[in-house]
């Protein structure tokens, strides 16, 4: 049934007449534009959107917007894009057609694009051929004698993470194979059949009983499964850690793959003067792809360190990722913090209260007999459940072993 009354010409003005297929065309075109703006959509959704419009009718613009949004959007972050695009698209039929024409490749006379956010604007423009603007990336040179001092200035620099060279790739893979990261396990709430455990697996037991004429020969049990603890990785990408960041991220990515395989949370952030969320990048299975995305995301590469402020951001924006207070936090940092020690202490206390363990891997230590006396380092040392100082981590190998070692404690 359709709610578009046949004798209501006014209702056709917004989206055209459903029976003549204009509505369908417009919805399809709108869906295409949305997809170009990065909203994940498939053909089934668009078909559903048309059904939805038939249900609510097209008399009221607000209803059309709400109906399309309910069907076409499935993430909170897409809502703003949807609304702007909807406004641009359905402001009036003429503009919609102009935009439609504009979306076709080779369209002439580009109408003035509405002042919208870049994603929306791009979606309304003819598609660019892929690979148009390759980024040139300078080689990352590893200079082992660079002075290790944290910059006081807020320096914003995009991290240029090259893809792994063949030798680096084999190195990372070999390390992952040789040095097993033992992510501690806990007993999960889920169970599996077994022979020990407090609860009886009645289904299994009964199956056995049915085969022996109702006689219970053995009691099968429900055993709690084991699963690794959720991981939260906090990696320092400030100036003093600059040289390690790329390979360290590559190693962590490859080494915690098994955790990801078991569908346990793995949240990854880098920090320098600000906090960058790399969780999505780490979800990519390919390490090169991860490095590329990470390089694009990190904006404070090789700058100063403000761990306290970064942790405050973590608390304010991402606190809900620390579900159940059983996350294992691994901080890889030299502890040369330039922020306020009080802030750092407060944030670390908060983090500790909301996680299971807080581990700190400190790779600064080039000197034997180092004690964490720098301001930030002292605070970190007090707050952490475990600290491991790795002397001389000129090789990724030592760093990897350090991480494995501290996870065992």
């Amino acid at each position, binding site marked *: *049934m359709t709610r578009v009354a046949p004798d209501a010409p006014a209702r056709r003005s917004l989206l055209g007449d459903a029976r003549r297929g204009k509505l369908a065309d417009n919805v399809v075109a709108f869906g295409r534009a949305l997809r170009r703006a990065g909203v*994940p959509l*498939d053909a*089934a*959704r668009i078909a*559903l959107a048309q*059904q*939805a419009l038939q*249900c*609510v009718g097209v008399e009221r613009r*607000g*209803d059309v*917007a*709400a*109906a399309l*949004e*309910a*069907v076409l*959007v*499935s*993430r*909170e972050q897409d*809502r703003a894009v949807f609304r702007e695009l909807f406004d641009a698209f359905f402001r009036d039929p003429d503009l919609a057609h102009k935009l439609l024409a504009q979306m076709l490749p080779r369209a002439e006379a580009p109408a003035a694009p509405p002042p919208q956010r870049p994603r929306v604007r791009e979606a309304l423009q003819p598609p660019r051929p892929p690979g148009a603007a390759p980024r040139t990336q300078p080689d990352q040179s590893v200079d082992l004698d660079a002075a290790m001092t944290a910059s006081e200035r807020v320096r914003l620099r995009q991290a240029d993470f090259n893809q792994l060279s063949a030798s680096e790739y084999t190195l990372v893979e070999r390390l992952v194979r040789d040095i097993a990261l033992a992510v501690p396990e806990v007993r*999960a*709430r*889920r*169970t599996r059949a077994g022979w020990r455990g407090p609860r009886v697996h*009645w*289904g299994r*037991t*009964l199956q056995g*009983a*049915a*085969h022996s*004429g*109702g006689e*219970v020969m053995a009691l099968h049990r429900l055993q709690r499964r084991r699963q690794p603890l959720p991981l939260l990785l906090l990696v320092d990408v400030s100036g003093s850690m600059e040289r390690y960041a790329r390979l360290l991220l590559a190693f962590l990515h490859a080494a915690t793959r098994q955790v990801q395989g078991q*569908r346990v*949370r793995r949240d990854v952030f880098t920090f320098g003067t600000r906090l960058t969320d790399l969780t999505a990048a780490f979800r990519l299975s390919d390490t090169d792809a991860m490095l590329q995305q990470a390089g694009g995301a990190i904006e404070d590469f090789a700058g100063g360190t403000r761990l306290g402020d970064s942790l405050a951001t973590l*608390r*304010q924006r991402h*606190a*809900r*990722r620390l*579900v*159940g207070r059983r996350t294992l936090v691994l901080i890889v940092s030299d502890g040369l913090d330039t922020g306020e020690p009080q802030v750092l202490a407060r944030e670390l206390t908060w983090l500790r209260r909301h996680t299971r363990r807080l581990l700190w891997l400190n790779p600064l230590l080039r000197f034997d007999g180092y004690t964490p006396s720098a301001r930030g380092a002292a605070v970190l040392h007090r707050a952490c459940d475990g600290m491991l100082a790795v002397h001389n981590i000129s090789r990724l190998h030592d760093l990897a072993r350090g991480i494995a070692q501290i996870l065992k404690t």
Partner: protein
Amino acid sequence: MPPIPAPAAPTPLASIDALIAALQTVGYYADRRLATAVFLALRLQRPLLLEGEPGVGKTELAKALAQVLGRELLRLQCYDGLEQREALYEWNYAAQLLHLRAAEGRGTVEEAEREVYQPHYLIRRPLLQALQAPAPGAVLLIDEVDRADEPFEAFLLEYLGEYQVSIPELGTVRAVATPLTVLTSNRTRELNDAVKRRCLYHWLDYPERERELAIVRARVPEAPAALAEQVAGFVHRLRSAPYAGHFQRAPGIAESVEWAKALVALDALLLDPEVVQSTAGVLFKQREDVAALSTELITEALSPEGA
């Protein structure tokens, strides 16, 4: 898609306006966008995924809908480690064992098995109950689905797509009438895209000031009009730009209603910084947030003009 059934004339299903009005009679003030999403979920027979901050009325919506539609509300509270036997069905093993004992010596093993696996011995959990609910169907609330783990989500995917489950010993159970399914999520993690694709999506925002006032008035009728007005205005301001940055978690609707009740209990006629501070524990549940609610901040937020 099955043909969409024509609704009977006076039901809340007739139009979006009728749905809004019906929800209002049970004390749920939905805005038009939300009502449109619900309306579509009913018409297109799709599950509705609600996301939003805690305390914006996600669970309440399902309750209100059950009341309005005259359907049974079945609630599945998700938690870490939720398994199929707690969500779908489980055999009543103790009874089965008794049966086997009683039938001992009679009949063959196959007969015993057949007798034991009767619907009679089945313990129905919410998801199965929702399929078997009679004619108008049930309202199925799958609460905090983000707390369950991903294998459960994969199972849910199948369930929401077909509305049928197969019980190996009994065969396939199909929905008598498609339940109206409402999923809620607090976004502790992103849900699987495939699950989202099955659902209509609505992000529930904090209500605008007028709607919150209406909710407070409806829920706390004994509150003086001026006080309700102040409560709605104050909470609304705490959630908006300059103030929201001070707090980890802004108070939800549930909190403002509770707060209004608390103020009534204290015989407060108007808000002043002292009263606000002494009842801050109703609005905020974190020590840092309570501490952030300083006297200056309260005075500023209470001042009539400025936002």
